[in-house]
């Protein structure tokens, strides 16, 4: 079953499973317990801490384990706000942050007297450091949140430049690296990041664990109180097995980075995917700028920086130093595309019928697809947002997955082929007003009904979406 939804959740890496199994089979022990079993569990946790720290250039002692990326973002935003006096609770977030950041900031506004400004992004979803600088209120701004790379469109952010601005204003920088953690260049030290959020399952570890990496000297108030684990910043018994899986996944991601899997392999696969989709739908539009690709064919919207095209973001510079995150370093496995005239919901249903997994805009609690705040912040209209599909590749993706996805998209597009001129541009296939057309009358006599099902009909039907 072709799985192209790594940005939602990556399949468990074999290394992670192998690290978890012994801890699940062994008698349960609390890593805080002072007996042999407890020490063994504690050892597994501390190994994981080292592995996670190594992935993002931090010291093991900086890693605070949480229940996931969302809790890490919440701890960073709320925990920082609560250290500040009421007049110094100003927040600046990029408009394309994950809801874990934006909604935590909204809580701080509503319940902790904070005020929040959103830093605008350009058409590709990138923060302009100059425009962000204008929002800073030196001495009052507590925290600036700019993610490493966006989860919906893959665009990388100028984190190091923003960190410098934040520090000048006396604020700390939160970098949500949940998507980008496995990439070259995401580095606590080089980028000047004070707080960095991670999620295990995006790296191929289990769900239910993540981390907030806290630069030494950064003040933070805990949100979860109890046994005082994680230096008092996050109480609760540590899930040793899950953390072992997280650590193993981080180590495997780091190994992939060194072998070039994360950049070269993924961006090559993505090139195949894009080429296949373009052949099927020449009118497709790419959202955002998820970074360069080896072949040079990937030039988002025709507007990307030509100087970046064809260059793979390097891990190290000529002197062997880690390079800071640059705007070029987007997510190499992510492709957000709009198929004009086709509702993402409809495409996803048809792809699902072929066993192909991918995503539309952000999903809300009820499971419905609602227009993404990221695409809207990029200036895309709500129709474009509703016609956007996100494909995301990762550690176990293969050329066969990509080929199967392209085939399924071709079949889906055939079913959904819009009749010329009859397309409802609001993306509403259901209740167009006065936009009906003869093509919309697909229930005309002669079409096989349920009484005479035609096995080829699904692929052969060329219904007008009508209104």
């Amino acid at each position, binding site marked *: 079953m072709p799985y192209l939804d790594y940005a939602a959740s990556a399949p468990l890496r074999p290394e992670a499973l192998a690290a978890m199994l012994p801890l699940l089979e062994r008698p349960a022990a609390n890593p805080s317990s002072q007996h042999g079993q407890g020490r063994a569990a504690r050892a597994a946790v501390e190994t994981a801490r080292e592995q996670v720290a190594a992935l993002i250039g931090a010291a093991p002692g900086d890693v605070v384990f949480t229940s996931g990326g969302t809790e890490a973002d919440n701890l960073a935003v709320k925990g920082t706000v609560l250290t500040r006096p009421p007049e110094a609770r100003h927040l600046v977030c990029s408009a394309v942050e994950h809801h874990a950041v934006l909604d935590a900031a909204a809580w701080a506004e509503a319940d902790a007297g904070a005020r929040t400004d959103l830093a605008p992004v350009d058409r590709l979803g990138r923060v302009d450091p100059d425009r962000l600088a204008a929002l800073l209120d030196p001495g009052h701004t507590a925290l600036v949140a700019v993610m490493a790379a966006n989860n919906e469109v893959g665009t990388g952010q100028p984190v190091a430049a923003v960190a410098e601005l934040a520090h000048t204003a006396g604020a700390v920088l939160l970098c949500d690296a949940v998507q980008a953690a496995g990439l070259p260049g995401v580095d606590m030290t080089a980028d000047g990041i004070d707080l960095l959020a991670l999620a295990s399952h995006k790296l191929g570890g289990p769900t239910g664990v993540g981390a907030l990496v806290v630069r030494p000297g950064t003040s933070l108030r805990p949100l979860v109180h109890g046994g005082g684990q994680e230096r008092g910043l996050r109480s609760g018994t540590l899930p040793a097995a899950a953390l072992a899986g997280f650590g193993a996944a981080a180590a495997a991601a780091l190994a992939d980075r060194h072998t070039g899997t994360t950049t070269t392999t993924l961006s090559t696969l993505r090139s195949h995917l894009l080429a296949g989709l373009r052949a099927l739908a020449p009118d497709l539009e790419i959202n955002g700028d998820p970074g360069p690709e080896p072949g040079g064919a990937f030039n988002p919207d025709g507007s990307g920086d030509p100087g970046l095209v064809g260059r793979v973001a390097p891990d190290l510079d000529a002197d062997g130093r880690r390079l800071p995150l640059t705007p070029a370093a987007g997510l190499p496995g992510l492709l957000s595309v709009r198929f004009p005239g086709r509702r993402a*919901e*409809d495409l*996803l*249903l*048809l792809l*699902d*019928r072929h066993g192909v997994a991918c995503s539309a805009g952000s999903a*809300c*609690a*009820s*499971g*419905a*697809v*609602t227009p993404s705040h990221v695409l809207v912040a990029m200036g895309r209209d709500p129709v474009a947002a509703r016609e956007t599909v996100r494909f995301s590749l990762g550690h176990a993706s293969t050329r066969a997955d990509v080929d199967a996805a392209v085939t399924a998209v071709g079949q889906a597009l055939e*079913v*959904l082929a819009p009749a010329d001129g*009859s397309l409802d541009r609001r993306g*509403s*296939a*259901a*209740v*167009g*007003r*006065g*936009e*009906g*057309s*003869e*093509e*919309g*009358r*697909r*229930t*005309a006599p002669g079409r*096989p*009904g*349920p009484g005479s*099902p*035609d*096995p080829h*009909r*699904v*692929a052969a*039907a060329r*219904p*007008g*979406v*009508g*209104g």
Partner: protein
Amino acid sequence: MTAPQVLVAMSGGVDSSVAAALAVEAGWDVTGVHLKLADTPGHLQVQGKGCCTLADADDARRVAGTLGVPFYVWDMAEEFQRAVVDDFAAEYAGGRTPNPCARCNEQVKVVGLLARARALGFDALVTGHYARVEGGRLYRGADAAKDQSYVLYMLGPAELEHLRLPLGGLSKPEVRATAARLGLRTAAKPESYDVCFVPDGDTAGWLERRFGPRPGQVVDTAGRVLGHHRGAYRYTVGQRRGLGIAAPTPRYVLRVEPAAGRVVVGERAELAITTIELEQATATDGRPLRPGRAKVRLRAHGTEVGCRVVPLDPVPPGGPAGPRGGIPARRPGGRVRLELDEPVDAVAPGQAGVLYDGDLVLGGGTVSTTSRGGDLLTR
């Protein structure tokens, strides 16, 4: 032979759960879809009140899981807001009494969803309505107390050909028993009766929050001012309560004149009407409504009265029903006059008038005017 591919509209209630289960039992290739029709934040939702709460979506998802069928949630809140909620408010503001359920079926749940299902290659749409489709015609459901044919009158042959209503031959107790037999978690779920987007049932309050106060006069048929009101949209024909006037005998709303801000009241006997005119009238066989005898129903569970059907318009060019796939806001339909065998009380413009021949639904339309003995009462 390949099983027909059907899309089942799953609200999360017991009826659509059982409809999905029966579709699976029939051997059809079933896909479930739940329509998210409102954007009410989760913490403001009350379970069992209105539709489209998170709990309803969860119930539908769990039932789909029990049945082993794929399940999706489609956000049609925008369409619902425009076609149903805004229309509901505008109708009241215009002095009419709308039927939002008929409107929702017409624009979103049945006709709209069917068009989308067909566009996705499905053979048919399955819903949990209590009505029957046989030989391409629409009939009342077997359970007279639950019959929902009234809200489906606008369907034509193009829709009926691709609509499957598995509950049409069942009674409500049979449906609940089926749900229990199959272990569906919705088996004992309570009914919802309210207008789903007015969960507290206070339509007048809902309208007032939307429009603000629009004070005006309560007058009798001679134009004498009897009192004052906060907004004509708070009144509907036949209403007795909330008039705020003192009179020796009960007074009823005879008509609402929103332009003048006037609510006209009178004696109960004055509510009786003998002639009704329908607009946007369509027939379930897709042909123009023909002159003849029928029974008309004016409320979802009201009584029926015999009538003579008199079509008033020539057949519009291009067929009587207009384009079905595109679903314009108000589908072109004809006007017909209904001459009632006996007077009927309190019929409000905006209500649906549905024509029956026995159990067969002939068609119907929206009440535009009513009159008694040639005197136009409401327009």
